[in-house]
């Protein structure tokens, strides 16, 4: 190795940078593409520009972690304080007007809207009485149960009402929980109007979606680029003199690309862990867990029909005719059920467990004939506040169970038609009959 220029050194680093990306899980989690506030985007851009090549991978990720955290409004730093002071003069101007006039304000400048957003996200420094709405009221779609109403719900409720109504709740809270949390808020009329204006936008667009994690896509692109480079270099022999490096890169990237494609292809269209927000914050943990309601009480067709059934509103009413207040925010959520029944408008739940149309699945077959408990497929629902999909509902998952599950042959039906198996089981010739033993792997049992 003779004289090596700075640029040439880097080419040897490339594979290692890539490796470190893969091997550092924390890092890959944080590699999110996020649209942040302008300032922050600028900042990251700056740092990246400066240290594009020099900077250590770990450092750059730390920066990004910080940035993304900022975007979610969890961090209050100097920049924001500076920002709030920027819009302050406008605010003070508003204060000179009487409140009744301010509450009727309908047109807002961009600056004002930004301030509304910042107020909601707790980015405005108001001394000891700083507020942080987003801490309790989600602006993003969340996959855990948050008992408090999210920004969308509040905005829907106050869409037709004036900002003065909102101010009453904020400044003179009523409910016990609200009294505790909304204690001592000192918001000006101007700020409340801006908060309301900010929340109004959710009515149109809904809650913000969480940005997809595309770490693996990035890695795949990098791996593909490396793969291409190396395969070209195998021929032209310009980059690496030692061909073994090329071959090593080629082998490694091939394995990586195949693996990532395979894993993702298998997971394609499957929704393991799918936990959507439901129109009513219904907690299975409260109903099935704490109150020990039997699954079959609400899902009363599971034993007698193909489908387990979503309970109709009238079933809710069996208890909630009397039970109108929950321990947490039950009052608001139970009120939704009662309203739906009064309006004769069905509650549109988001379906979680869904098999493709070409699969026939019968709850009756599994629960009644097969004697399988609910948690075998649905997991420990009793501990789920927000319900999520436990299995991936793949065919392999189905077949695995069919292979291992023992059949109870004591049913008259089996005794008649599977007498050979029943007799040998009784005689002790075989120790068990699995579902596959009675045709549980026939394609046509589920696909027709």
């Amino acid at each position, binding site marked *: 190795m003779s004289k090596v220029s700075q640029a040439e050194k880097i080419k040897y680093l490339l594979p290692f940078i890539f490796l470190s990306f893969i091997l550092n899980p924390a890092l890959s989690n944080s590699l999110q593409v996020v649209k942040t506030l302008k300032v922050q985007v600028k900042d990251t851009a700056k740092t990246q520009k400066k240290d594009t090549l020099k900077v250590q991978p770990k450092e750059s990720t730390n920066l990004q972690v910080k940035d993304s955290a900022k975007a979610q409004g969890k961090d209050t730093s100097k920049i924001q304080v500076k920002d709030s002071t920027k819009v302050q003069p406008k605010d003070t101007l508003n204060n000179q007007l009487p409140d009744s006039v301010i509450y009727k304000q309908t047109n807002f400048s961009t600056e004002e809207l930004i301030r509304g957003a910042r107020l909601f996200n707790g980015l405005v420094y108001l001394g000891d009485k700083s507020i942080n709405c987003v801490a309790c009221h989600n602006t993003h779609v969340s996959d855990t149960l948050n008992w408090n109403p999210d920004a969308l719900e509040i905005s829907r409720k106050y869409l037709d009402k004036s900002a003065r109504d909102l101010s009453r709740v904020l400044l003179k809270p009523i409910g016990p929980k609200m009294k505790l949390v909304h204690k001592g808020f000192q918001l000006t009329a101007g700020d409340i109007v801006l908060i309301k204006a900010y929340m109004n936008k959710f009515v149109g667009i809904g809650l913000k979606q969480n940005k997809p994690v595309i770490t693996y896509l990035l890695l795949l692109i990098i791996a593909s680029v490396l793969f291409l480079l190396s395969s070209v270099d195998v021929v032209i022999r310009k980059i690496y003199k030692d061909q073994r490096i090329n071959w090593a890169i080629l082998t490694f990237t091939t394995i990586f690309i195949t693996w990532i494609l395979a894993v993702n292809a298998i997971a394609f269209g499957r929704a393991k862990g799918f936990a959507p927000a439901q129109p009513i914050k219904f907690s299975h943990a409260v109903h099935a867990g704490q109150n020990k309601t039997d699954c079959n009480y609400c899902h009363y067709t599971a034993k007698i029909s193909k489908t387990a059934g979503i309970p109709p509103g*009238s079933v809710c009413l069996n208890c909630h005719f009397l039970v109108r207040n929950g321990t947490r925010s039950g009052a608001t959520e139970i009120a939704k059920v009662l309203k739906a029944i009064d309006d004769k408008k069905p509650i549109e739940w988001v379906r979680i467990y869904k098999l493709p149309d070409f699969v026939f699945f019968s709850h009756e077959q599994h629960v009644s004939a097969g004697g399988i408990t609910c948690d075998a497929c649905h997991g420990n629902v009793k501990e789920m506040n927000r319900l999520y999909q436990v299995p991936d509902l793949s065919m392999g998952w189905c077949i695995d169970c069919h292979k291992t599950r023992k059949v109870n042959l004591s049913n008259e039906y089996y005794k008649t038609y599977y007498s050979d198996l029943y007799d040998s089981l009784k005689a002790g010739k075989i120790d068990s009959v699995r579902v596959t033993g009675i045709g549980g792997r026939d394609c046509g049992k589920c696909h027709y």
Partner: protein
Amino acid sequence: MKKYWKDIESKKKKEEVDGIIKAPDDDNSLLGLLSDRRKDMAASRRDFLKLCGFSFAVSALSSCQSKISKAVPYVIAPVELTPGEALYYASSYINGSDYCSIVVKTRDGRPIKIEGNPESGISRGGTSARVQASLLDLYDGNRFHNPLREGISTGWESIDTEIISKLQKIVREKGTIILLTPTIFSPSTEVVISGFLKKFTGSEWVQYDAISYSAMLEANKISFGKQVIPDYRFDKADLIVSIGADFLGTWLSPIEYTKQFSSRRDPGQDMNWLIQLESNLSLTGSNADNRIQIKPSQEAAILLNIYKEIIKGVENRHFEAPSSPIDVSEISKKLVSSAGKSLLISGSNVKHVQLLVNEINRLLGNIGKTILFDSFLRTHLALDSNMEMLIGKMQKGDVNALLVWNVNPVYNWYNRDAFTEGLKKVGLTVSLSGSPDETSSILQYICPDHHYLESWNDAEPKRGHFSLMQPAINQIFDTRQMTDTLLKWSGSTMGYYDFIKAYWVDNMMRLQSEFIDPVTFFDHTLQKGIFEPASSIVESAGKPGKSGSIPFDPLSVKTGDNAGKNSTEIVFYETIALGEGRQANNPWLQELPDPVTRICWDNYASISPKQAKEFNLTDCDVINLGKVELPVHIQPGQSYGTIGIALGYGRNKCGIVGNDVGTDVWPMLTSENGNIVYTGTSDHITKTGRTYLFAQTQTHHSMEGRAFVREAGLNEFRNNPAAGNELHAYNLEHNKSLYKERTYPHHHWGMAIDLNKCTGCGNCVIACQAENNVPVVGKVEVHRVHEMHWIRIDRYYTGEEDNPEVVFQPVLCQHCQNAPCENVCPVAATNHSSEGLNQMIYNRCFGTRYCNNNCPYKVRRFNWFNYSAAGTLTGNLRDKEGMTGNLRRMVLNPDVTIRAQGVIEKCSFCIQRIQASKLKAKYENRALHENEIQTACSQSCPAKAIVFGDMNDHKSELNRLINSGRRYNLLEELFTMPSVNYLTKIKNKIL
């Protein structure tokens, strides 16, 4: 071995095909891009790459979307309803004069299948293709959505007040109000109508049936003193002689007659004998033991000769008859020898012919034995002369208001111009029909009726046989039942449901002694669907008049052989599927191939091969018959000198499916002595030089030269139960397989089809289509051999070209134990189950069609295009019939996958029904009941020709059939070991 043939000569239709078939409608489709018909752009390599890229992108994108679906429960759940479980309602099918007792299967509030009601003494669990398809009419978006005034939507309130005030004004001015309906055989409706007539004095009720039996009614009035059509008992007749009456297909009450006829087609027992004399090759003629070709004009002369022979045989009197065109001495001898157990019927609508038939039956002593008047038919009561009189009045301007319900004289009255002319002089015209037709299109007001599946009603199709109709779904559109409308206009505050209930409590309660409580009685009857009290309790129609008391002069009968020598006689007939054309907007029926000609989506002029040669005509030539131009279909067995043309086609106001399908030939009908005559003559038939394209399923399934249909005579069968089936024993002995034979120790599903019972009516085809979501493909696609029916009925001719015998054979997936299709599938998308089923897994199939190629029975169907809107690729939807619209899709069975483009599908032995019944047995902790599992085709077969069951169940009916000497398998020399078994056809060949 008999030689079977299917076609007269193979024709080279290639040029015609290319000439007439249009390129796909939208050329943006993949096929359009690749099509060599695009002259400006031959598919280049670039296009190919473009397409590759496109399809990759589309498939990638379409699979990325994961749809968020909603689960929407009821607000307050109905008590009787379990989501996901089927509910069955007993009801009745009434459409014009068609009647059937049915059970409606509903899922989550929508009817998805119609089954026969085994409780009924009339249909006894059978249905017809029309009954099965009537389900689809419910989901027809072409039905009226709301009341209309001069074509503009309006509300019931305003239309009611307007019409009532107009009617009242007419009554005040002593005008005439006419209510025009088909034959009404609902007792409650009759009372509603009479109430309406009483309320509006000066109003009259006219019944009109498009297919008229008025000559028969008039003749029976003279012969027996009762103007009704008697109850024919085909199950009690050893010998049936039918002169042009297609009683298995369309005549009077075909479901009932098929049941009765087939019950006597068991060769082991007392088998009946059917002689058919006819011009067209009808369904009945195809099933006849002897078929004799005659011209319609010869009917009277033949009957006179039969009369002559019989009066000689029975009363030993001499009678001078004109010379007979055919030798009737044998037939007459047989009739005399089976006197009292024979039946002579005629499909003619000429009074003197029917008088002669009555007289012969009387002489033979059949009245009271095979022809019963106690339980006469009430489904056909209309007289043509009444309609004639009505039109006369209308033309004179004597009619002030005309209310039309469910009849369509503007389309199917022979003299439609006179009717339309008269209509112009009627002040107020109201249509009460539920769906648009030619008549309602020119009426002022439309007060739409419910579909029958949304209605309450009752029926008495035969005296003493009552049945109830109940809604299986809430009304889809803003319609109101006709009877409710009449009740409202009559000033009644009662709904029709309460009305029926009250009527039944008042009138039916006393006919039974089982229930004392009226509510229990009504509910119980409603659940059963039918009410058939002991016949002695029902007041009888009175005995027919004494035999000698009726003056009858046989010499007055005109032999009517006055047609010119060169003229050709035309016979008009109804098809099995469309009948008079009421259900023309039903794509299932339009696509049901005619049992004999195997043509769908069209009517045509059937002509005998001999005459075709004389006129130098080939299949598909268009000829001019004077009033209309029609394509020619050369029909073996068509009587020489006659042409057969189907009525019921050529509608233009029924909806997107049925408009302009076929040719309208109703104006060619004539009237004679006040009765419409369904025959005619044509003096000049000219070739137009044009050709036409048929969608014909016949030429596609050739199994030539093989013993797929085996038959024998009754005498041979009596000597040897395996007569005609000698090959079976030979094959059993010689068939050897390399593979180890599979065993099915638990269940082994199988089927037996009795070719002797099957009449080929096509009910199973539509039943299967409804049950298994079989798509409709349309005329062009059928022509391109893309039809999708899972069960087809093959028809073969044997014997001479000019006078062939016909055999029918339903062919479905044979569920072979050595299935040739399974070995060749590269992805194991078709394989065998542990219960002997040949399974087809749609989501696994990727469309190589190897299985299709390797199937010797050609029962596999390929989704060439996106017929069902289940595919993801755009631009390939083939749905001219609107079957993928939201409303039409409500007919789909949720338990059966909708197949996407590019996959093979085929009969599954209704595995969804097998699974459901098994699960029910497990849930109830019991073994399966006998015949508990029924496939869609076997459940509603009116002939009971299809039997499904477990071949391992040795006590089953199926095993009894399988173990008979008549059993054989299709193409058993291939050793495919099918699970579908056929029983040889045994013809009663005595003549």
